[in-house]
């Protein structure tokens, strides 16, 4: 493998790790709210969060592009307040990966939390534990397996993201190019052998993430 290829693999994996880390806390918090609380507008939020699963990724990318571009509402604010550019930078890559893998994390985490017997949480409350302590000592350890699976799933999804990334981050070599966008580019240029190398790496990474997730779940059960 060439240094360029290594750089792309490292960048893509790094972005996937970063985006997963970014969505972990808010994703688990939202999953908890969906699993444990009854509130107005819950089904609306649920649907909204699930949208990137079914929407063409290109459309999600387009929406992000409009929101985070320098003239978009969020992008404008970020630029005028912090002098931050998002679109067509590595930040846009992390953003696209985060938005696209968020629903997978939330859904898996939600069902993991729902599987925890609420009676155990209630007993913890009768023993004097406040809501934070109940979450960190009862809910979290008992949902650990599912939460980990959800995290790995989100990571694996982020590794392969293409449509939203290319819209909002483009394909700028050395700046925003990821495994998927590079493979697309290489095939366009007729460099199939290079594309195959990267495809093989993608396969290996995705396989490893899923396999570790499965293995962790099996180990917990026995």
């Amino acid at each position, binding site marked *: 493998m060439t240094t360029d290829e290594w750089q792309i693999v490292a960048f893509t994996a790094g972005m996937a790790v970063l985006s997963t880390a970014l969505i972990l806390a808010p994703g688990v918090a939202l999953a908890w709210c969906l699993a444990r609380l009854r509130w107005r507008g819950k089904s609306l939020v649920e649907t909204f969060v699930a949208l990137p699963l079914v929407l063409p990724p290109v459309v999600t990318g387009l929406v992000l592009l409009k929101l985070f571009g320098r003239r978009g509402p969020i992008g404008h604010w970020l630029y005028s307040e912090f002098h931050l550019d998002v679109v067509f930078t590595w930040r846009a890559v992390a953003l696209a990966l985060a938005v696209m893998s968020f629903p997978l994390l939330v859904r898996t985490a939600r069902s993991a939390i729902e599987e925890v*017997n609420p*009676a*155990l949480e*209630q*007993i*913890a*409350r*009768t*023993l*004097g*534990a*406040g809501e934070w*302590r109940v979450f960190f*000592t*009862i809910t979290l*350890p*008992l949902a650990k397996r599912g939460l980990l699976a959800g995290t790995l799933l989100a990571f694996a999804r982020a590794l392969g993201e293409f449509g939203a990334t290319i819209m909002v981050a483009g394909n700028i070599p050395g700046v925003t190019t990821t495994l998927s966008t590079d493979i697309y580019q290489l095939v366009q240029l007729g460099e199939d052998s290079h594309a195959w190398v990267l495809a093989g790496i993608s396969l290996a990474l995705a396989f490893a993430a899923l396999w570790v997730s499965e293995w962790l779940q099996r180990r917990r059960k026995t």
Partner: protein
Amino acid sequence: MTPGIQASFTKRFAGGPVIRVENLCTGGNGSTITVLFGPSGSGKTTMLRCLAGLERPEEGTIQFDGEIWFDSGMGKSVPVQRRNIGFVPQDYALFPHLNVADNIAYSLHGLAAMEKQSRVVETMRWLGLNGLEQRLPGELSGGQQQRVALARAVVRRPRLLLLDEPLSSLDTPTRQRLRGELRSLLLQLGIPTILVTHDQLEAAALGDQLVVLDQGRMLQTGPVADVINRPANLAVAAIVGTETVLLGHVTRVSDGLATVTVNGFELTALAESLPPGANAVHLCIRAEDVILLQNGGAPASARNRLSATVLALAPEGPLMRIELDCGFPLKALLTRQACDELALKAGASVVALIKAPHIHLISFNR
């Protein structure tokens, strides 16, 4: 300040009866065990959960030792964390990922490690759980799980202990053994306790005070023996399992004794619970209060002496349940040895004795 629980509230549940608690008081004496007793679906567990603060009643008030825990008028509800209760649910709900010692120490969060350790050790020793510290709940027997749940609930010395069907998820031999054990443990603790059960034997063996519930309502409250021997009405008699309930007419009342005619036979009972002028009555006779003699046996002090024919015998643990015909149906409960000595079998003729105080009269038109 009135000690113990003082509660009156209403709780509605989709698909269940409306639960109405009227003036529930659980004596103030430290070791009083109050049993909420009734068939399944009578709302016992919901009542317990309302007292614990795990459910919120629609309206009413709950006070403990004069402190307001819930008051719908004031919009006040003390969160469960601050009621300082010990709650043991029916399935014990031990934390499956924590070992026995950590389960028990859960409520001691914030105490110094030394203090925590010594309290856990002390409680475990008291309940005979030594050596099980490192076990996970899944590796314990039902009886051990029950004691760990009790240890976890009492280790921080709560002000009130709430137990939901504490023995119902155990196998029969363990349940029989723990029935007696649990009461003495609870008395040693000296924490006022409210306990829910649908099992009559459990209610009688564990409780001081009995609250009989049906369809979400409190039917009768009083000392256990009073409620079981003198049910206030037929519904309570049915729930506490009075074996013989007969219909009769009062023909004479004199010197505190009532003469009641049942199917043409005269029986004598105490007249104390009868309102003046009562005529139609129900007679309640518990099977264990019926004494059997061999035919033509010696004279006895019991007021009621009836010639009876044995209809059927059915074993019940160490006892034998006997159905008799004395001109009306009557049930008796005897030890097996007594049955053998009397050579009882279906068709045998015997004499049944019932003392006047053992016939409880419930007036019909009340």
